[in-house]
């Protein structure tokens, strides 16, 4: 039956591509989460009225974040080609997509982290200070736990954006479902392949949203 409706779909290739997409998304989401939280914390803590208030550092970090957030992703990949070549050793394949994916998504997520941290009740931070908490205690036991639902829903949105980025990266040689849809589907005019790739991407996106919502709901005790 599959052969009649989807004559050009080679399932082993589809499976490989799906795996590559999940791999690229997974690794870049993990790295973005980590890097974004660091950048977001830095943005928050150096802003006015906070623990490390520092205009210079804040402006520099904010500028970097804004620049990388503003460059269209497809251009960012091209700009980063020499960097990718130096770090990964190749500009082809799933691993070669990772630097661009992370550098593209981390600043985006950092802004979300900053907003989430700003929503943490100032009074709670003051209470922790009044108990003699160190800055690291405030970060790890107050700021992050108290903003965790927002951090998780933020990374969910970012992860979905990253699935889209992997497809774009795929078009210029990173592999994955985007690559499959572009090379096998579009360029060879096999619409059935494009359709299958699209459906798989949709499933991945729905799964990410579902898992993200579930986690957010279970940790939010407000």
């Amino acid at each position, binding site marked *: 039956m599959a052969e009649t409706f989807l004559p050009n779909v080679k399932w082993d290739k589809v499976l490989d591509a799906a795996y590559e997409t999940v791999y690229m998304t997974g690794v870049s989401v993990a790295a973005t989460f980590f890097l974004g939280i660091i950048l977001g914390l830095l943005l928050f803590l150096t802003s006015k009225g906070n623990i490390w208030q520092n205009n210079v550092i804040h402006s520099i970090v904010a500028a970097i974040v804004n620049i990388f957030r503003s460059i269209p992703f497809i251009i960012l990949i091209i700009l980063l080609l020499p960097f990718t070549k130096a770090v990964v050793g190749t500009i082809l394949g799933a691993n070669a997509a990772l630097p661009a994916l992370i550098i593209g998504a981390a600043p985006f997520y950092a802004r979300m982290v900053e907003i989430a941290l700003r929503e943490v009740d100032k009074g*709670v931070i*003051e*209470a922790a*200070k*009044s*108990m*003699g908490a*160190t800055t690291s205690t405030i970060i790890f036991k107050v700021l992050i736990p108290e903003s965790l639902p927002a951090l998780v829903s933020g990374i969910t949105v970012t992860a979905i954006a990253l699935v889209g980025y992997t497809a774009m990266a795929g078009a210029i040689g990173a592999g994955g479902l985007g690559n499959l849809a572009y090379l096998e589907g579009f360029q060879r005019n096999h619409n059935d392949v494009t359709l299958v790739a699209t459906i798989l991407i949709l499933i991945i996106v729905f799964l990410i949203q579902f898992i993200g919502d579930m986690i957010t709901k279970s940790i939010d*005790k*407000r």
Partner: protein
Amino acid sequence: MISLKAVTKIYQSNRNPVKAVDQVDLEIQSGEIFGIIGYSGAGKSTLIRLLNGLEKPTEGSVNVAGKRIDRIKGKELRTARKEISMIFQHFNLLWSRTVRENIAFPLEIAGVAKSERLKRVDELIKLVGLEGKEDAYPSQLSGGQKQRVGIARALANNPKVLLCDEATSALDPQTTDSILDLLVDINKRMGLTIVLITHEMHVIRKICHRVAVMENGKIVEQGDVLTVFRNPQADITKRFVKQVTEPEETKETVEHLLDKYKKGKVVKLTFIGDRAEQPVISKLIRQFDVDVNILQGKISQTQNGSYGSLLIHIDGKEEKIKEAIEYIRNQQIEMEVIANG
């Protein structure tokens, strides 16, 4: 225990600096419940934050439990803060932690071992009467229960001083009373020094030994609660004292009465301490040939005695009234003739 000398705090906002605290001198004894009352913007929130170094004074010295809070910083300040804990108007609990975990938080900060933490938390939960709520999250608690968690959390590291930042202002009157009772109980049992700021004279009356009145960053009056109640000096103090001694409608009532009683005298008596419990009025009626009509009365309890005011109308022959008033004067009761008939 606490000593502030010539403390001034100026906030440098764009262009016009704001003097939040202005040349404040304050001495608070160990084991005392000290109240600071003032309207919002008087500088009391800043003043209380100077006591644990959340704010640094622009000038002057702040000495709490033997530490120069205005000078120390870093680790030394963090250590000092374990002896000066604080509770807040909006409780400031971590919503992501259960009651037990919230109370354990300062113990984690102090580096107390886990088994000991659990033991101490159980003691504290019993102390503030939250048995059965150990695993609830703050969102599942009422305001009064949240403040009890706040108090337990503040007591975790056996502090010497407890700072209360409008701790009952977000609570209803009944819950306020139960929280105040808990504070008095803690003060008596543990000999804890309590400094509280409030805008409600009721709170001062109910639990404080001494009071300071703040206006525009300055302390305009301070002393024993009973003395301040009996003899308020500053206008603002008089207004605060009226909050608890005179019901809202007093002025109207009096005006109405003055119209009604054309004869005799309307007299306001103020009783302090033991005098408040003596049967002055019945003696008055028995000894003098006068009619006494009680118009309005109120007795309030403070931590150092009771305080009451009574509005009466005395009628009879003129010289009898004079004698009666003379008698009252001799009873060392403060008296004010409001109107002559």
